[in-house]
Every structure is written in structure tokens, then in C-alpha cells.
């Protein structure tokens, strides 16, 4: 029964979080409003501890607690997690050190508290946490933090904003995404754009998202004088118009998405006028969290739509990696890692019997053209064993976006042949020829 089952998308930014939720199978995510008296979809990323007691507050409650003098704030939590800091909390009555991951976990757990009536009685099937970029240090902390949630760890996934945008877009009507799409993100100080191209000549449809930072388009300083604001925004509108003119010179882009608090207000009328001449323009703040919720649903129960597309980005594996293996008397292709897998999720582990020879050959097939190549791991120390009397454990994983690591271990063959004390390791650069 799908009524009871929800998936969640959690957008974690430097300054705020946002949560979207969706009934599994509906493909209609909703974004949680943290206030009943007005629209407030973003909860500030603020954490505070009440002095003298073990009571913590998040978001606006944390701000109130600190403002009233009752609490101590954990400032710059996001940056502290990035650095892996140990955070020293002293409120006069108690002094204690916390890891940044612990406090991040506390924040995330408490951020779900206001959703009691939405989540109550429901089964959370999956959670996708999305961020601007996936950093290895932050990811490790995030995984530790997510361990504090009452959701099975194998049902919690992590992806960047590009991937969340991808899942959002593929669930849009086809006429909106049949040409190139452009997304302008003005959440942070500087604008970022994402140009989405979908190659509909390939099967599945290979989607690439090119990200660009625009240092010339920035929000005004917070302390800007009112008198200067109009002029600043006027110049900003001009700068944006110029950028748009350059971006759309080839006229491939027909749909535009404007995301982030930087697009609040009416300062960009000229730019908007330019866009609306021949393009469809959409605005909003919740594209990433909704995309993350859709991604969560796809993880658990892939739809026909998602199987038509594959996203390739710099955080994705750009090639299919496989082996040729005997299945009975027949040689079959065994997929090891699939193109489009996020590098931090790429993992494969399986045992094989080495029938004959002493090497293992991997086949690398780039998905964006290029030659199919093979990479061989020599197991030189394995000699003298009869046919089919060696059990190998093969692990394949990625520690960085374009490097695949292979580890092969001899498990021996029970009482017949003891394992040799040897692990064969090889790294393959994807996107470059192997040496």
C-alpha cells in the first residue's frame, strides 16, 4: 500500500535547509512550510543550546533562544563540518566537546520535529540529502550524522544539486525539456548557472549538466544603503541581461529556471523581459529539495521515466566497467560499475573462481564515445594451482570522481590450497588512457 509510504528530499545549504516530501508513487512532491502564519520553506541552519540544560533548538527557535539570552549558538556550523572541527560548548554549567558530525546530526534530527503531523504514522522509505557539491569530508560527517536518524542507512542517499535538478527536470513535461534547459541559481552570494543538455539520439538519453560560476553577478552587501540599492540592482539587471544574451546566443535553450533568494523582488525586469520573449521561465526556491524527493522515489522504485535517462557529470562515472565471465559454458558480460553512478556510491564486491590463467581483464566502455579498452590486473604470484581451484574476492570502488580502484584478494581454496598473503591493487583513470 503506497498511502503510508513517504520519501523525503533534504536540501542542505550553508545558510538554510529545506525539506520536500512525497507519497511514493505520486511523483508530486510538496515542500514543507515551517510556519502556519506565512510561507517559510527554508529553515535557517542555526543551532543553539539552552544554557544549563541539555536542550537544543534549531532554526528560528535557535535564533530566539540566543536573542533572549537563554542560549548559546553553535556558530558557522556548516563551515565547522567542512573542516571536521571538534566544537567546544561551554554554557557556564556544563562544558563538553562535540564532533561537528554529532551536532550536524542533532540539527538534522531536530529539523524534522515540526513535520510531526506530516510524518506521523508514515513509513519513510528513503531520504535523499542534496547539497551544492559533495565534498568527501562533509560526506563522511553527513553519513555519521544521518546515523542518528531512524531511517535505515541503506535508504539514505547523497547527491549534489546538479543531480537533484536532473531528477526534477526529467519529471517535467517533455515539451519543457525537449531542448536545452538553463537553471540560474542565485541562492549564494554569486550566481551559478547550470546548462542542461539531453542527447536524445542516445539510449538511454545521456544528460550532461555544465556548471558555471558568475562572479560578475553578486548579491549586494547586507549593509548597503537604501539610496544605493536601486542603482546597484539596476546595474545588476544590466549585467544579467548581458550574461543572458551571451548564454542564449545559439538559441538552443527554451526553458529557464530561476532559483534562489537572489531572485526575490522585481530588480531584474529587463532580464525577465528578454527571457520571456521566446522562452518559458519558471521561478522558485524548492527545485532542489523537490528534485531530491523525486530522486528518493527513483532509488526505491525506479520509474519508466528515469530508466530513459542517464546523467553524466564530473561526479559521475563516465564509463561502464565490466568483466567477461563464464556462466556455464557461455561467456557473458558482467557489469561491475555502471556509467552514471555517483563516484561516492560506486561499489562492487563479488567472489569468482579463477578457472585458468592468472590475470583478470576489465573492459572499460566510455559512454560518450571513445575506444573501448581493457585493463588487466596481473596475479603473478598465483602459480601452480590447478584449474578452478582459486577463489578470488574482487572489490571495485572509487575514491575520487575519475579514478576507479580495484582490489583482488586470494581466498585460497579451503583445505586444498591456502590463500597467499597478497592483495593485488590497481587504479584506473577514467577519461584518460591507462598507462
Amino acid at each position, binding site marked *: 500500500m503506497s498511502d503510508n509510504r513517504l520519501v523525503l528530499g533534504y536540501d542542505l545549504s550553508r545558510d538554510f535547509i529545506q525539506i520536500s516530501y512525497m507519497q511514493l508513487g505520486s511523483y508530486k512532491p510538496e515542500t514543507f512550510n515551517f510556519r502556519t502564519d506565512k510561507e517559510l520553506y527554508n529553515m535557517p541552519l542555526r543551532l543553539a543550546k539552552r544554557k544549563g540544560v541539555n536542550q537544543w533548538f534549531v532554526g528560528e527557535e535557535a535564533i530566539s533562544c540566543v536573542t533572549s539570552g537563554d542560549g548559546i549558538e553553535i556558530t558557522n556550523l556548516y563551515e565547522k563540518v567542512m573542516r571536521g572541527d571538534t566544537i567546544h560548548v561551554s554554557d557556564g554549567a556544563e562544558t563538553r566537546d562535540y564532533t561537528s558530525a554529532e551536532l550536524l546530526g542533532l540539527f538534522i534530527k531536530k529539523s524534522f520535529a515540526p513535520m510531526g503531523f506530516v510524518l506521523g504514522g508514515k513509513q519513510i522509505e528513503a531520504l535523499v540529502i542534496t547539497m551544492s557539491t559533495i565534498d568527501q569530508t562533509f560526506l563522511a560527517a553527513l553519513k555519521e550524522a544521518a546515523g542518528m536518524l531512524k531511517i535505515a542507512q541503506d535508504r539514505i542517499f547523497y547527491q549534489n544539486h546538479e543531480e537533484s535538478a536532473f531528477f526534477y527536470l526529467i519529471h517535467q513535461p517533455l515539451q519543457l525539456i525537449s531542448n536545452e534547459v538553463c537553471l540560474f541559481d542565485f541562492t549564494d552570494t554569486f550566481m551559478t548557472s547550470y546548462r542542461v543538455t539531453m542527447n536524445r539520439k542516445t539510449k538511454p538519453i545521456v544528460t550532461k549538466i555544465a556548471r558555471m560560476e558568475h562572479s560578475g553577478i553578486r548579491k549586494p552587501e547586507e549593509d548597503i544603503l537604501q539610496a544605493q540599492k536601486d542603482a546597484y540592482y539596476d546595474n545588476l539587471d544590466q549585467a544579467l541581461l548581458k550574461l543572458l544574451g551571451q548564454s542564449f546566443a545559439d538559441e538552443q535553450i527554451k526553458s529557464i529556471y530561476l532559483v534562489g533568494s537572489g531572485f526575490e523582488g522585481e530588480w531584474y525586469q529587463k532580464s525577465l523581459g528578454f527571457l520571456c520573449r521566446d522562452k518559458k521561465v519558471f521561478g522558485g526556491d524548492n527545485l532542489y529539495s523537490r528534485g531530491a524527493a523525486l530522486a528518493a522515489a527513483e532509488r526505491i522504485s525506479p520509474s519508466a521515466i528515469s530508466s530513459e535517462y542517464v546523467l553524466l557529470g564530473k561526479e559521475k562515472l563516465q564509463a561502464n566497467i565490466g568483466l567477461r565471465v*563464464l556462466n556455464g559454458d557461455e561467456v557473458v558480460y558482467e557489469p561491475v560499475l555502471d556509467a552514471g553512478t555517483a563516484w561516492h556510491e560506486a561499489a562492487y564486491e563479488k*567472489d*569468482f*573462481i579463477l578457472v585458468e590463467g592468472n590475470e583478470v*581483464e576489465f573492459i572499460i566502455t566510455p559512454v560518450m564515445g571513445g575506444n573501448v579498452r581493457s585493463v588487466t590486473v596481473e596475479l603473478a604470484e598465483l602459480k601452480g594451482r590447478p584449474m*578452478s*581451484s582459486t577463489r578470488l574476492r574482487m572489490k571495485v570502488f572509487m575514491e575520487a570522481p575519475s579514478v576507479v580502484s580495484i582490489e583482488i584478494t586470494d581466498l585460497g581454496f*579451503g583445505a586444498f590450497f591456502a590463500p597467499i598473503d597478497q592483495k593485488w591493487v590497481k587504479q584506473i583513470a577514467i577519461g584518460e588512457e591507462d598507462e
Partner: protein
Amino acid sequence: MSKLKFCVGNLAKKPYYISQARLRIYSMEELCYFLCEYAGLLDESLMDDNLIAWIDTQCGMSELSKQLYQYAHFNRAVHTFAYAILSAVAYRPETEIRAICQRIEVYETLDTWQRKKTQADQFFKNKQYMVALEGYQRILLERGEKEPLSDALRADIYHNMGCALAALFYYKQAAALFHEAYLLKGYTTDLVDECACMKFALTEKEFESWLEAEQIDARVQGELTKLFVSAKQLFEQTTVHEEFLQADNLIEAGKRELYQEQVDDMIRQIMEAYQGYTNF
């Protein structure tokens, strides 16, 4: 080009003990290896409910275990039982599996003593020399009491026992058995093997005296020389010989520590192999 195949079933947390071979197995592939390499040992005791249960619960091969249960309780043919396992795992090409099962079928038709000899030969072939010796001795004693063994069979047993004892460095005992085999069958090779064992057992001077005392003729001595030359040539093609040369190079280069490491490793391997010969 190398070939890989998928493993079938799970790696067992608890092994199965095969009493005929005194071995523990942990996977379907190890079971198949046993069936292929120890075909001579196989008899009805293979079709054991405990093995079938192990295949089901430890290896996760429920469908196969149901099939094997039928064979064990209604068919009772060892070669059919073995075929089902080897095919399910696809351990070897189909033609090889059939050939192995045909051998097993032949063994099933042997009488008790022929089968015991085959089993002892199997242990001998797999270098489980102590177990093989035990098997041969039992045949000589138990079968010998009931009805006389033929000279040919006795000679074969003595010869194999001699080889097993020689591998275990019991040269004088091995020489005595080769001598008995020679007396029964008259094969020069047994006489040459006797001489070879005595050459290892005695000093050079003692061996010269022994040759004279036994009146070993020049032809046999010539064959002995050829045997040692041939053995030396074979040895020089082995990896052990290569390792000896490497060790020599290390000592010549003054790398005493590395030399010691290499030699220690070689000795350890030889000791481990010897342990395998003597395991019960």
C-alpha cells in the same frame, strides 16, 4: 587469456567434514574439486543427509538439495549424485563432467577390495601418504587373511607403499618394499628404486659396499645413474631450483638477511608440504 566464472552458492560459515578424505570444505566449488580429484574415494557414503543439509543451509542451494535427496534415497547411484552437483555448479565443461562421472560409475562396479585399493591409490595420488599407507596395510592384513592376494596386486601395493615411504624420507623401509615388489614381479624399475632409496639412506662408502654385497649388476647401476641424471634435469626446470639459484645469488652478493628470508620461506613451504603428506 584467463577465464573467470561466477561462484555458485554461499561461502559456508560452517564447513562440511568429508570423512573419506579427512577434509573440511567451505563451498560448492571445493565440493566439486573433491568430486573431481578424489573420484576414486567416492562410494555410497557420499550420499549423506548431512551433506545434503549442508548444501541447503550453508550454501543456500535449496533446489539442488531437494534433487540430491531424491537421488540419495531413491536412486542410490553415486555417479548420478555427483553429476547433479557438478552440473549445478558447472565446475567443468560438460564433456569433462561426463567423463568424471563415467569413471565414478566404473568404480561403483568394483568389488570391495578393488575399491579399497582404488581409494588408497587416490590418497597416494593426492600425496596424502600416511593415509594411503594405512589403506594399503589394511588391504594386506585384512584381505590377506581372508584370501591370498595375487602377486601382481601385492607387488603394486608394495611399490606404492615404497614410493610413499620414500616421500616421507623412510628410505630403508621403502627400499625393503621395493625389493619385495621386485621379487614378486621382477621389474627392473623396482630394483632401481630400491638402489635409489639405499643411496639416500647410506653414506657413499656404505652404499658402495651395499652394491657389492647385493651384487647389483652394472646394467642396474647404469639405470640408477640415468635416473639421477633425469631427476636432476627435471629438478632444474622447477621453480624450487630457480629459488635456490636466487638464494645463491643473494649470498654471493652479500645480502645475508635476504638470503636468510628466502631460505626460511623455502623451508617453511617444504615443511608445510610434508605436513600435508603426513596428515590423517
